[in-house]
C-alpha cells in the first residue's frame, strides 16, 4: 500500500533523511516514532508527494508520488502537522471545498460530508467559522477534510500534538476506529501513542531508520528481558537497603526521596531471566517496614532511543532479524 525505497532527502550536510526503506501492507496501522527533528515530517512529506525525494522512490497504492503524483494523491487522506484550514470558511464550507478538490461526485458530496462530520464529531460546530474553533476542533476539522473522500490510506503527521488530554484521548479513539478498514501511517514523538494505536513501529533517529518491528517486540528489546520494579516503603533504612541489595538477581538498586513523609522509593532492576519480586516483598515485610506500593516499570521512549542508537549497526541488524 505504501512503500519507501531508499528514500533520501538532503537539505544541508546533516539534515533530512537518509536511505529509508520500508513497506506497509494494506490494513496495517504503523507508527513512525522519533524525537523532534529526526526526519519524521520530511519522510511523511515525501510519501504524500509534497516534497520530492533527493533520491529513492515513494510509492502509494503502487503509484510513484513524483511521476504519478495525482493518482497517488487520490488514494491518500493527509493530515499535516498544522491543521490546514481557512479561518474565514465555515466548517461545512471547508468540507464542501475539500470534497470538491478530492473529486467526490456532487451527488455523493452531501452524504460524505455528513459522514465525515459524524466521524470526527463535528456536529456541534458544523455552522461555525473555522477560525473561531478550539485547537482540538480545528484538528478534527482538518482530519474530516482528509477523510471526506473516504481514502484507503490515511497519513497523519503528529495528530495529537498541542491537544489537551481529553482531546488526545478522543483523537486516539478516532484513529483506532478509522483503522478498522484503512491503512494508517502516523508519526509521533510519544511512545504511548504508538502503543495506543499502532501494531507496528518504525523508529527514526537523525534521519535514519533504526528499527522496524511490532510494537511489543520493540518494548521488550528496549528493556531486554529484565524485570524492573519500583517500590514505595515506609520505615525503611540502611538495614533494609542492604538486605534487598544482597538478594540474588538484583543488579541495580537506587533509592530516592518520596514526597510522602517517612517514605522512600526504591528502584530495582533484576538480572535477565530472574523474577525476584516475591523475594523483595518478603524482605521488606520481614524487616518490619511497610510496603505501600509495588509496580513493574517499562522502558520509556528515552530508553528505547538510547538502546537503539547506542547499538552499532551490525548488532542492530541482528536484533531486528
Amino acid at each position, binding site marked *: 500500500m505504501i512503500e519507501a525505497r531508499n528514500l533520501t532527502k538532503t537539505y544541508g550536510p546533516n539534515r533530512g533523511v537518509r536511505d529509508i526503506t520500508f513497506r506497509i501492507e494494506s490494513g496495517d496501522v504503523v507508527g513512525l516514532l522519533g524525537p523532534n527533528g529526526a526526519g519524521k515530517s520530511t519522510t511523511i*512529506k515525501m510519501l*504524500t*508527494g*509534497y*516534497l*520530492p525525494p533527493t533520491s529513492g522512490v515513494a510509492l502509494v497504492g503502487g503509484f510513484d508520488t513524483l511521476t504519478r503524483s*495525482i493518482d497517488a*494523491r*487520490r488514494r*491518500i487522506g*493527509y493530515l*499535516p502537522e*498544522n*491543521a*490546514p*484550514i*481557512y*479561518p*474565514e*470558511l465555515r466548517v461545512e*464550507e471547508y468540507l464542501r*471545498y*475539500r470534497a*470538491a*478538490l*478530492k*473529486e467526490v461526485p456532487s451527488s455523493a458530496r452531501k452524504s460524505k460530508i455528513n459522514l465525515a462530520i459524524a466521524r470526527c464529531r463535528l456536529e456541534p460546530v458544523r455552522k461555525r467559522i473555522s477560525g473561531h474553533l478550539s485547537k482540538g476542533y480545528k484538528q478534527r476539522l*482538518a482530519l474530516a*477534510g482528509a477523510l471526506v473522500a473516504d481514502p484507503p490510506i490515511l497519513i497523519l503527521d503528529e495528530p495529537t500534538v498541542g491537544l489537551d488530554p481529553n482531546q488526545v484521548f478522543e483523537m486516539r479513539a478516532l484513529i483506532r476506529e478509522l483503522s478498522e478498514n484503512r491503512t494508517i501511517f502516523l508519526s509521533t514523538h510519544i511512545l504511548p501513542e504508538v502503543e495506543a494505536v499502532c501494531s507496528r513501529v518504525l523508529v527514526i533517529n537523525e534521519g535514519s531508520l533504526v528499527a522496524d518491528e511490532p510494537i511489543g517486540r520493540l518494548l521488550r528489546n528496549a528493556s531486554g528481558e529484565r524485570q524492573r520494579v519500583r517500590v514505595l516503603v515506609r520505615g525503611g533504612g540502611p538495614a533494609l537497603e542492604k538486605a534487598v541489595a544482597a538478594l540474588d538477581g538484583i543488579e541495580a538498586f537506587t533509592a530516592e526521596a518520596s514526597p510522602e513523609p517517612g517514605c522512600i522509593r526504591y528502584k530495582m532492576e533484576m538480572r535477565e531471566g530472574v523474577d525476584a519480586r516475591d523475594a523483595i516483598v518478603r524482605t521488606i515485610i520481614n524487616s518490619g517496614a511497610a510496603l505501600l506500593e509495588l509496580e513493574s516499570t517499562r522502558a520509556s521512549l528515552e530508553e528505547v532511543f538510547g538502546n537503539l542508537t547506542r547499538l552499532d549497526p551490525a548488532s542492530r541488524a541482528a536484533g531486528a532479524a
Partner: protein
Amino acid sequence: MKTIIILRRELIGYFLSPIAWVVAVVSALFMARFFENSAVFSRSANLSGVYVNTAYWLVSVMMPALTMGSIASEFRNGTIEMLATDPVRDVEIVLGKFFGVVAFFVFCLLPLPVFYVLLRVSGGNPDIGPVLSGFGAMILEGALAAAIGIFASALSGQQIVAFLVSALILFTLRTLGATEGMEIPEWLRRCFAYVSMPSHFYPLLRGRIATNDIIYFLSTTVLFLFLATRVLESRRWK
C-alpha cells in the same frame, strides 16, 4: 476542472475579507471622483478620462493589494500543504486564484457601466465603441496586473513584500515607454515601447482594436502565470 472550484473559494474568500471590501469601496469612490472630474469639469461626454485614471491609479495599487495574499496566505495558513497533496495541479491552483481575482476586479469595475447610463440620461451621447473597447482594455490590464501580483505572492511568504514587488513590476511596465528626451539607441527605445503597458493600452482606449496589443496583454499575462506556477513548484521543492 479544479480551477473553477478554487476560483469559487477565492471569490468566497474575497467577499468575506474586509480588505477586499475596502478595496472595492475605495475604488468606487475614486472612480466616482474621476467621473465627476471628466463629466462635470471637463464636460467630456465619454469615459476615456475615467478609464485612464482608473487604470493608472487603481490598478497599480488595488491589484497588488488584492493579490498579495493569494499564495502567500496559503503558505502562512499551511493550506498549501493540503492543496499540494489533494489531487490538484499547481497550474490549477494558480489559474483558480487568477480567475478569482479577475472576477473580483470586474466586480469592482461595476460603477463604470453606471457612469455610462448617467451620461446617457443626462443628455450625452458617448460613442459606445470606445466605451466598450476601453472597458475591455481595463480588464486586459487588470488581468495582467493580477498575474504579476500572483507571481509576486508566490515569490514571497510576506504579503507586504509581495505587494511591493508587484507594485514595482507594474510601475516599471508603466513607465518604461516614457523615453522622450533620453539619449538611447532607437532599437532600445522601440523595445521599451513594446514592453511598456500604456503603448498598448491607449490605442484600445481610443477604440482602435489591434491584434498585437491584445496579444501583448494576453502573452504577458500567460508568461507571469507560468512563472507563478514554476515558483510555486520550486518553493515547496526546497
